[in-house]
């Protein structure tokens, strides 16, 4: 127990053992959802969800079959949502004081305790999820070879994985900064960043790309038209990507936001008091 690695290793094992119930429950619920989606994509529940997420109108989905939708849309979404819920629970033991006292007093450095959380939430959980998905996809593919699947070497799979990791860094910061509803606050913060980002890009395009026309009469928009106005910018920037890719909305800022969030989460962790 004298090295950084041995202490981090023990902290990760302790965390897995202490949170094994929530860990297994999340993976189980996610896969039950995916399995039901796989065999029951025509059911009213999934039709409603498709409508809610505007998948019915997507050119991408209309041009492809349900299996595409399952592998390229639902798998990444479930991956992101379940990983985010898990990450948001990373620091639950620091909120009741009696548990926080014990964990903060454990003889390991602040860096070791933080690194163990990051490895477990940001890397291990999504990785385990991807491995289980691969097993499921491989099995289902053997039953019906007409279906597409994301193979282990498929670049989309690793793009989903990478985006999930980036997002987990942001959720990690929210989990440590907020005691309650951290996941919702993180999503709200990301939404604000996303809207601002699109707005800035819109203004940049307006200035530098005169060849792209915008339908805007110059008046200050109301709330509904403001959302349309900002969406338009996002669409222009990302339209080529959206045509080929219906899964995760790309965001060029996410890697930078992830790195900053990760650094801030460490700083915030060092300030934790019981």
């Amino acid at each position, binding site marked *: 127990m004298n090295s950084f690695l041995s202490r981090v290793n023990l902290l990760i094992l302790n965390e897995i053992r202490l949170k094994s119930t929530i860990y297994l429950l999340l993976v189980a619920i996610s896969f039950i959802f995916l399995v039901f989606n796989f065999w029951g994509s025509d059911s009213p529940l999934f039709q409603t969800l498709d409508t809610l997420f505007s998948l019915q109108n997507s050119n991408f989905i209309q041009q492809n079959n349900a299996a595409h939708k399952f592998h390229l849309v639902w798998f990444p979404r479930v991956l992101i949502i379940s990983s985010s819920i898990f990450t948001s629970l990373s620091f639950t033991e620091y909120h009741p*004081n009696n548990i926080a006292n014990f964990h903060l007093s454990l003889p390991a450095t602040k860096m070791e305790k933080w690194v163990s959380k990051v490895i477990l939430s940001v890397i291990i959980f999504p990785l385990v999820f991807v491995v289980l998905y691969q097993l499921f996809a491989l099995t289902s593919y053997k039953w019906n070879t007409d279906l597409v699947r994301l193979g282990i070497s498929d670049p989309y799979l690793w793009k989903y994985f990478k985006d999930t990791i980036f997002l987990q860094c942001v959720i990690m910061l929210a989990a440590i900064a907020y005691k309650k509803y951290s996941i919702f606050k993180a999503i709200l913060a990301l939404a604000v960043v996303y809207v601002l980002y699109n707005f800035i890009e819109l203004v940049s395009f307006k200035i530098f790309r005169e060849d792209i026309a915008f339908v805007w009469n110059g008046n200050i928009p109301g709330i509904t038209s403001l959302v349309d106005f900002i969406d338009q910018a996002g669409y222009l920037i990302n339209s080529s990507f959206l045509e080929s890719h219906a899964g995760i909305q790309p965001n060029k800022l996410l890697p930078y936001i992830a790195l900053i969030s990760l650094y801030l989460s460490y700083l915030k962790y060092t300030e934790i008091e019981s």
Partner: protein
Amino acid sequence: MIQISDLCFGYNLKKDLFSNLNLDIHPGQIHGLLGLNGAGKSSLLHLIQGLRFCDTGSISVFGQNPQSRSVPLLRESFLLAEEIYAPNMSMKKFVDRFAPFYPKFSLESFLKFLNEFELAHNSHLAKLSMGQKKKALIAFGLATNTNLLMMDEPTNGLDIPSKKQFRKILAHIINENRIYIISTHQIRDLHSLIDNVIVINDGKIIFNHTINDICKNLHFSLAPQESNHSNIIYQERVPGGYLKIKNANGRTSFEPDLEVLFNAIMTVNDSIKHAFQQHSNL
């Protein structure tokens, strides 16, 4: 050794819990930390453990700043909080998971303490009563063999035989390198164990004397009647009569009643201070 200098700390900006608190705590003793509710006993323990950060001033524990929560320091300090942490696992698993962090942890001692507390090693922590959980965690804390052991209200929830066992164990394991700090309301449970009495009030240490010093400076006697004699510093009705505290004037009390002393400190602290000053001037 623990050195606290000019410590200021508060939970809000309007009122400091501690203002310029100074305290030196020496090894080889069991220190009793006493105070009214909300006086800051638990907060002081948390500050010493590095679980809270002071606003100004400094704390040094074995020459290190506890705020850093460095591994060498955390390996030498254990805080048993009043609200104990008993995760959903057996005691055996608890030890397997957390004992490796403490290099001086003795499984042999742990099993011995469990045996004295009449607890089975394979008991499930979540299924134990509050008192049993406390005993399990006390056994773990004592078995870590840290040089600094702090316990916040350790006898709360313990039954009478367990309190006796606790006193017996603690009396046997204290040595000249170790500092034990026990914060308690239940002074009677531990009065025979405490070597040094520290009283905290209004953000300051208002009393910090060893039992030997107390015996040399104050005389405790039981009388059937209340008395208005001028040499009585404080008197309080107790079972069997009135317990009176007087200036020792060369006489030695063998067993001061710490509960009555605490009440005297909270009521007539200036007179108590005066008695100690008189003796030191002699």
